């Protein structure tokens, strides 16, 4: 088992004729071929105005609706540039895509506020934006992460950051652990899916035995997650919070990573998580071993 992604996931890419869209669609298709030879996992893409054409074997459609009707896609990976990305997300939701993964970085925050509002009534789930995507090792890669560092295993991984997720997966691999599913939720102030929803999914997923949560400065999502963990999560949890040394008021790369008015600091997040029984790694080099400690404590 896994969360969000399974053997029935059929993926299209919105923005497939762009450089990044095509490259990563190829990478995701190659991952699927390697792990599930003979199965059709990545089934095409959309670019308005290029419908009816083909690009490196992927059929291209004008609209998501068209792509869904002709391919049976239920998941969309979005590489549309920032000015048009919000519209692309809404198009996917309108076409009934169950899982929308938006990689695009730099979407105006009020565009995301409009998306968030519009999606309240939708049954679609949005992951991101500004995220590396999702991978269920051995089943499907829907994102820009290097597939090989994610081993099949029993850890549920949730992260705001891209390369830090790779670092964590690599550390887990070094101590013989892999993931059921790894989800990058994105570093923007407004995102589609939060820690709490994923914590609930991992808690309910029988194959997930432990959870590693990677957060960063800014906002209070990690503190709310800590409260949720305390009340509802029985599986061992470890965490790391990036940005302990970041100065207040400065944006640290991610639009969401900014400490304002003494709130959103790494220290307060670490304290809240520890109070919820989470093992918090003090050094980013200890994310894997922190999870090992969290698991051993329960034995």
């Amino acid at each position: 088992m896994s969360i969000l992604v399974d053997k029935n996931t059929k993926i299209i890419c919105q923005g497939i004729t762009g450089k990044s869209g095509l490259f990563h669609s190829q990478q995701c298709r190659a991952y699927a071929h390697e792990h599930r030879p003979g199965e059709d996992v990545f089934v095409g893409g959309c670019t308005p105005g290029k419908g009816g054409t083909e690009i490196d074997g992927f059929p291209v459609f004008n609209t998501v609706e068209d792509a869904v009707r002709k391919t049976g896609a239920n998941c969309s990976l979005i590489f549309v540039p920032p000015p048009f990305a919000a519209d692309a997300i809404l198009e996917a939701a309108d076409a009934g895509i169950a899982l929308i993964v938006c990689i695009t970085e730099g979407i105006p925050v009020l565009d995301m506020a409009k998306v968030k509002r519009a999606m309240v009534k939708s049954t679609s789930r949005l992951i991101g934006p500004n995220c590396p995507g999702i991978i269920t090792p051995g089943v499907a890669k829907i994102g820009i992460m290097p597939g090989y560092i994610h081993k099949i295993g029993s850890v549920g991984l949730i992260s705001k950051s891209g390369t830090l997720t790779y670092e964590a997966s690599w550390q887990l691999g070094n101590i013989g652990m892999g993931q059921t599913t790894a989800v990058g939720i994105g570093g923007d102030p407004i995102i589609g899916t939060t820690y709490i929803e994923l914590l609930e999914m991992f808690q309910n997923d029988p194959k997930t035995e432990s959870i590693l949560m990677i957060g960063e400065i800014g906002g209070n999502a990690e503190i709310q997650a800590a409260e949720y963990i305390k009340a509802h999560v029985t599986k061992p949890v470890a965490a790391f919070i990036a940005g302990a040394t970041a100065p207040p008021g400065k944006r640290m790369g991610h639009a969401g990573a900014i400490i304002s008015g003494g709130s959103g600091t790494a220290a307060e997040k670490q304290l809240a998580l520890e109070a919820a029984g989470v093992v918090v790694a003090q050094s980013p080099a200890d994310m894997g071993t922190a999870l090992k400690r969290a698991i051993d404590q329960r034995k």
Partner: protein
Amino acid sequence: MKIHEYQAKQLLAAAGVKVPRNIVAHTADEAAAAYQTLGGAIAVVKSQIHAGGRGKGTFNQHPEQRGVVLVKSAEAAKENAGRMLGSTLVTIQTGPEGKVVNTLLVEEGLKIARELYLGVVVDRESGGPILIASTEGGMDIEVVAHHTPEKILRESFDVEAGLRGFQARNVAYRLGLEGPSVRAAEKLLTQLCKFFIDRDCSMVEINPLVVTAEGDLVVGDAKVTFDDNAMFRHQDLLPLRDLAEEEPMEVQAQASGLSYVKLDGNLGCLVNGAGLAMSTMDIIKYHGGAPANFLDVGGGANVDQVTEAFRIILADPNVKGILVNIFGGIMKCDTIVTALLAAYDKIGIKVPLVVRLEGTNVDLARKMLAESGKPIIVGTDLTDAAKKAVKSLGA
């Protein structure tokens, strides 16, 4: 993108929000003339820098001079302006180096009955804009929120519809406004929230919002920040950017597609990815060092970008060593090392350089480093690299 108070007030006035009559001055004589034109008994002369705390701030060159002063004559306006212009204002927000004042705002004095606080920001929790209001105007709102959270009013509003009339009235009554002030508040609050959305702001702060003796509502001070990601649809706002207020190296980095923030330490870092870049700063500190910067080269770094990144890091005279931390995913390690070695030769790096690589093609990349003949220290993992980098500073 941040703008100055005088620019914020011009934009707000154009959006129908009431601001005091004011005139911008760049010389002491202009300040005196502005006082005359305003024609009142009292005027306020305000230093225009992006940082807050100006009223209590003092000038390096004139320790007795404050950043914001009340004046009662043209001579006083001229004398104060003479000391302020071209001098360095240090406030609690500027850091000890301060900011040079090049522009003054001369404003009519108001008959102040009460001072309120208004702010509009994006609320992560509700996923939309929120109006924040308080009866405790003129104070540091974070202090108010900390000591008397019950005095902070929060009103979420719809990003499409804006703040509704009834919402504005509810806030007005909860702020204790009465009579014509309620009507004035209803207009001002709805306009302010509309401005926030129309202009893709990330923050609008009115502190204080002045309730005058006549019951009118006027913007005392205004801070406006725009969403950098939305500037593509607000080209008209771009000229408002004041590069003199920004860290020059941060501006240069931005132009090269790099994300750089200068810090106070002496160990420079070059990393791919924002989360890993922050973590690299953290692990340097964890092992007793002090990071000189945050630098994310992004996912598709090439020779030019890596060269520019080194140049920016080394432009900081405090930098005594550099730690490169790359987790090569899609970006292969050997590609990064090729760029690294080319940049090394181009720049002539003279400080110790520690490199930690992991990910795709790492073995080839390490071999390339070893065979390069350059005195590059290789870190085997994150901890090892951080320790070696911190140690290299002492050597």
